[in-house]
């Protein structure tokens, strides 16, 4: 399982409607046109609260990462998960999983693409990143 389950709340409902349709929605300021992170309640540039949603282009670069090691399972196998900070082309950072990277290729600035994974058919689509060359 790549991602776990998550339940929506009032703040994330519209964003998760977006991920279900394959979009990563950013907050767009109708006053100054700036794009802010999805969880922003006011424009990160001009502080206006007049925000609508705008899909991100889907391009990002790697800012930092960690290879997280789970505890050994019954067979002694340890699950490795690459987690990272991605900087979207529009500016905001997003913390999520980097799916299927070649660990040797991890570097600052690695081109990434936004993708989506679900923990099950009935579950919400969670934004993740994949190396752009795999996209």
């Amino acid at each position, binding site marked *: 399982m790549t991602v776990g389950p998550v*339940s929506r709340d009032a703040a994330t409902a519209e964003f998760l409607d977006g991920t279900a349709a394959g979009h990563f929605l950013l907050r767009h300021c109708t006053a100054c046109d700036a794009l802010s992170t999805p969880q922003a309640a006011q424009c990160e540039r001009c502080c206006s609260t007049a925000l609508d949603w705008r899909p991100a282009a889907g391009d990002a670069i790697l800012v930092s990462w960690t290879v997280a090691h789970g505890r050994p399972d019954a067979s002694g196998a340890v699950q490795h998960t690459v987690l990272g900070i991605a900087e979207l082309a529009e500016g905001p950072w997003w913390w999520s999983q980097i799916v299927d990277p070649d660990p040797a290729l991890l570097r600052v600035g690695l081109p990434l693409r936004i993708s989506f994974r679900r923990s099950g058919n009935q579950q919400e689509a969670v934004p993740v990143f994949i190396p752009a060359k795999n996209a």
Partner: protein
Amino acid sequence: MTAAAVAPGPRGVPAGRRPVICGLGMTDLGKVYGPSAAQFAADAVRLAAADAGLALADIDGLLVSSGVSHGVHLDLQLDLGLHDLAMLSEMQAYGSTAGAMVQVASMAVQSGMAGTVACVWADAPLQQGTSSAAAYGAGARIQSGWRGLTAAAGITSANHRYAMAARRHMERFGTTSDQLGAIAVAQRDWAGLNPLAQLRTPITIEDYHASRWIAEPFHLLDCCLVSNGGIAVIVTTADRAAGLRQPPVYVRGWAQAHPGNSGRRFDDFGLVSGAATAGPAALRMADAELADIDVVEVYDCYTYTVLVTLEDYGFCAKGEGGPFAASGVLGPDGKLKVNTGGGQLSAYYMWGMTPLSEAVIQARGQAGERQVRDHELVLVSGNGGCLDHHATLVLATSP
């Protein structure tokens, strides 16, 4: 008022009103099962009062705080039978809370708002038979909202966030695993001299590399302990402290910094912490220079946190924390006396009370085998969130 202006510190008030830490109370710490966080907190305050030579009834201000078990609240007043308090509040700035409580208490006694203020932190996350990871909530339960999305993607722990901070520092400045390991080894050497420390067996850099990965670049030995227990300090005026049992520890300077990282392009997450502004500000208030500092007690949730804090305080240039840490400057035989009790990595994990308690012990000259010879000025840091909240104190043996 210009940005360079500094609030008048303790040296701006009459000598008798300057703030002093007069009491320190520490419960049994570590794998201590049974008491709730509130019970640890009450015990810590009683111990601190006894240490100072005060009766509980002498306390007229109380600041309370707790860790992940959230068990210490305003009703601690009633648990302690404290009547007619002049100040009572619950504070929360995560790992910077202990320093922040001492700052608020110092301002209260300096102003006369209160005369004798107990500041307490306690936590009881460990339950018998469960892991430290379980205690800090790295479970797989379904979560909701924005934090739930992050957790669903696999980012479930402070280990992951700090590992990414450390990785960014390594990529930018060339910091290495050996350099992080040098911090773990040096602090374990200090812990070996501290009867209060949970982990006292010496380790080598080979042991460090052999310890299991938690979240690369962090091995197990990069990460702090998890402990149950409580610690309290009592702050009063210099006049009041003069008749009490313990050598006075003056709170000479202080500052906080909460960077409010933007979380977008140009964010310096992982590269710089709040210590970069709070350290110099606290030293200015204390009328001291970094070179005057004898002992440094740094918040050390991870080895990396020590490295970035020492850099930000200016003990070495930005980016040179790695070579500095590995140069032999740390540890009991090193030139810079840092985390002299073993810190949160090896002694006990009481959030900001870990560096603060060791600072008070060193300043008093009561650290036994690990006592630093010159201990007139002690620099103490607290760090909360993932480098989001910072508090610095400058403690001194003279006003």
